[in-house]
């Protein structure tokens, strides 16, 4: 029986292993140490690693993320936690100017091996300020990498790669996924002795022949549900492709799948305007136009700030039913 752990535990395991792997890895963020993490991702790490490696930061995102960027230029590998990725906007200058462009402006003389991680999702009735999904915004900036894992297996393998990467990686999780369980082999079950998933490799989560549902983050889970309904009720065999990392992007996996199924929908919890799906559908149109039997569709969050009222916010996010309904219009 393969081992099952939660997304949160898998993430913590990845962090713990990297703390052991490299003495320059240091975790900094609000409530990450003594409080054990606002979402308990870092629970127990301070007790195990102590004050030097696990550091509680004041509520001061521009300050501590900027500090982490400066430290990374001198070879420290900071893993910064944003309690909510929405707070990235407080640190925007540091994350967009300093982390992303110093390498370029120095003609390649510097690099910033920093990870900024935290939950980037709506759907938890915390209002618009705490529900942002900025993966498209950061992926727009050359110099940055953006990762959005959808299950426990991936979150562990991807966080380890993100920390070892020598470029800034913005790692976007979901509070809704933290409690999700899934198979994650322990290291002694693995040939390589550890679970490492490269950035830039998408994963076919369910093979299919009739339509490709492409997604990242929690929208992958919604897409898998939709694929089940499509199969059971409509005899439509949907393929579900999880990008895992948005930049770098596994373009080949997308085109390969579309060339097989001839139909595609991009599903994301991001907003529609210039969203990740806008980029992907444009690429499909340019590269696989002749393979398409229908226009590429996009399903996103409603184009409005997150609604607080719980039953209404639910309606803002993509649902399996909506995916099924839209899929039926092109299948």
């Amino acid at each position, binding site marked *: 029986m393969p081992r099952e752990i939660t997304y949160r535990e898998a993430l913590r395991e990845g962090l713990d292993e990297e703390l052991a792997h490299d003495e*320059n890895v*240091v975790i900094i963020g609000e409530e990450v140490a003594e409080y054990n993490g606002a979402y308990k991702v870092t629970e127990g790490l301070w007790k195990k690693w102590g004050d*030097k490696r696990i550091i509680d*930061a*004041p509520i*001061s995102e*521009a*300050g*501590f*993320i*900027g*500090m*982490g*960027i*400066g*430290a*990374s*230029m*001198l*070879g*420290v590998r900071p893993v910064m936690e944003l309690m909510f990725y929405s707070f990235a906007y407080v640190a925007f*200058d*540091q994350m967009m*100017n*300093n982390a992303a462009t*110093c*390498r*370029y*402006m*120095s*003609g*390649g*003389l*510097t*690099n910033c*091996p920093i990870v900024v991680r935290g939950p980037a999702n709506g759907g938890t009735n915390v209002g618009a300020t705490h529900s942002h999904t900025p993966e498209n915004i950061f992926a727009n900036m*050359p*110099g940055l*990498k953006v990762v959005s894992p959808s299950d426990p297996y991936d979150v562990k393998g991807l966080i380890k*790669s993100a920390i070892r*990467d*020598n*470029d800034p990686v913005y790692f976007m999780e979901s509070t809704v996924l933290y409690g999700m369980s899934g198979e994650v082999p322990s290291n002694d079950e693995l040939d390589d002795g550890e679970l490492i998933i*490269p*950035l*830039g*490799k998408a994963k076919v989560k369910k093979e299919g022949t009739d339509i490709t549902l492409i997604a990242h983050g929690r929208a992958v889970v919604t897409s898998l549900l939709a694929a089940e309904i499509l199969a059971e009720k409509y005899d439509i065999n949907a393929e579900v492709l999880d990008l895992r*990392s948005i*930049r*770098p*992007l*596994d*373009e080949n996996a997308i085109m390969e799948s579309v060339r097989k199924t001839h139909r595609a929908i991009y599903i994301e919890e991001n907003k529609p305007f210039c969203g990740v799906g806008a*980029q992907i559908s444009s*690429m499909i149109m340019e590269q696989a136009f002749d393979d398409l039997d229908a226009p590429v569709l996009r399903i996103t969050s409603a184009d409005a700030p997150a609604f607080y009222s719980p039953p209404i916010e639910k309606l803002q996010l993509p649902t399996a039913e909506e995916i099924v309904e839209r899929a039926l219009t092109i299948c």
Partner: protein
Amino acid sequence: MAAKTKSKATAEYSDAPINQSLTDEDKIEMLRKMVRIRRFEQTSLKHYQGDKIGGFLHLYIGQESVAVGSISLLGDNDHVITAYRDHGHALSVGMNMNECMAELFGKATGCSKGKGGSMHYFAPDKNYWGGHGIVGGQTPLGAGLAFALKYKGLKGCCLCYLGDGAINQGAFHEALNLAALWDLPVIYIIENNGYSMGTSQARSSAHPEEGLAARAKGYNMAWNKIEGVSLYEIRAGVSEAVERAHNESKPTIIEIMTYRHKGHSVADANAEKYRTKEEIQRYIEEHDPINFWKKTLLEEGVITEDDYKKINREAGDEANAAAEFAEKSPFPDESEIFDDIYWEVDNNTEAGRTGRHFFHK
């Protein structure tokens, strides 16, 4: 403080141990550095006006003593980061005129291969981390460099320079809090030239009577205010902070009073409107750090007028040669556009080869 006679204060600072240890050669070298910065910038101004240089050009003329004096104190584990008025710091850490001038000309031989320009000089091999264009944006990075030194157990510090206009940026206050809270060996040097672009200090900054650096009191941090015309005073004041950083791992804010002879940038058309001509003239005549140091060294018998002329001529020749070098250098190749964005791509690693990184065309 006028430069006409050797003031009591100057005598006091020249007696400081850190200055007593200076050899004649050290003193001449500092003069040479200041003169080289000035000649470099005067030459760059000429070529800016000749349309050889694009964008902005923020000149340091009048402030040379700040970078030269403070950087003269640094050792192997001490680091420097600054804002966009960065030519003086770059030449002070030992970057050469050719690479700096070529960068202004946008040439492939520039220190940043023509990718950064005037505001973004870098030389990590000389512990010099930029050259930052956003006002105050470098101040958390300075705390980070200090954090890294402390994390690695190195006895060093980071000199993080900013202008008086930058002290009102939120990032600076966040950085101060972190520096004090975590005992980071960072020294924030406010180069107070009196003007936040075209807005005077009185119109831009609320502060304690003692000055801008006194805001440090709110963070329980050490601070100091220094007259910037004299290298002796700068060295004496900054060396205390360096000692504090090295021995106690504590931060300091130092305000150094200085003056820029030129506008905020060359494009500052109002440079003589928000300041009176008389004020500018007074500073040039009485507070010019190069004249002041030259006079000090003449008085001390360290140099002769001929020595100074020689230094000045050599620096001018060097700057002209740098401009010639820049002029003759090729522009970067178009293929350079996609280099130096991702470390992993540049180094052709497995990670750099996995997935698509660029999305043009």
